[in-house]
């Protein structure tokens, strides 16, 4: 068991455990904390795949800003333990196995794909990290229009959040 394998399994297990805790937790704040755990584990997996900049962006934006918003909203709304309601029997007893079946189906077909056999690195044994310069050149030259479009999208989101949060005077 070489070091990349051990690291992969450690972070993969942390991610899956976090996702299961998200489902199982009674309080929303514990679900939020387990989702943060999943995101940090995924950032570590991005590092293993050589995408350093994306790992840093994931932690700064996703785990450090979006999830802070979630935690704020949970704290403001004082969201407590979820109430239980009556499910229909079909949903409870047929839904969960079907969900797990979907999961296994996806995993099976992805594992058998032709891409799957390729090793994680381009060449034998060397893991070349993607340089930020190359990524930014592609972002600002080939994908310049989507980049500017997302800036307008963020402006629209800010305006939308402001309008929604405004109290009627």
């Amino acid at each position: 068991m070489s070091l990349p394998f051990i690291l992969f399994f450690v972070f993969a297990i942390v991610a899956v455990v976090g996702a299961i805790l998200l489902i199982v937790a009674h309080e929303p704040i514990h679900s939020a904390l387990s989702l943060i755990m999943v995101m940090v584990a995924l950032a570590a997996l991005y590092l293993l795949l050589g995408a350093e900049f994306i790992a840093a962006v994931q932690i700064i934006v996703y785990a450090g800003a979006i999830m802070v918003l979630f935690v704020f909203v949970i704290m403001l709304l004082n969201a407590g333990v979820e109430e239980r309601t009556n499910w229909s029997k079909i949903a409870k007893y047929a839904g969960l196995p079907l969900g797990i079946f979907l999961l296994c189906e996806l995993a099976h077909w992805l594992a058998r794909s032709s891409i799957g056999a390729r090793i994680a690195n381009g060449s034998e044994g060397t893991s070349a990290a993607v340089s930020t310069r190359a990524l930014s050149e592609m972002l600002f030259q080939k994908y310049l229009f989507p980049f500017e479009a997302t800036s307008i999208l963020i402006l629209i989101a800010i305006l939308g959040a402001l309008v929604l949060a405004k109290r009627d005077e």
Partner: protein
Amino acid sequence: MSAVPISYYLVLSAILFGLGVIAFVFKHNIITIYMAIELMLNAVNLAFVAFARAHNQLDGLVFVFFVIVVAAAESAVGLAIILTIAQNRQSLNVERVNQLKF
């Protein structure tokens, strides 16, 4: 040192996506459902990064960047909507918001 095959990352992505779907379908709280959506987006990001490494192209990473940015914008508006709904209906249970007219 041998490296981890890409299929391992894809299987992990599928597992996380499936768990996100299960959480989305089976939870009551609006905020927890929204967090399940973010979990699904993260699983898809992992698949993109894995494919970017497999093909040695950077387009996958740029797409992950855009997914993260769009998720940020969407969560800002979505959480504002959730706050408004919670103030109007006084409940965070998704079953109580199933009518257009109160």
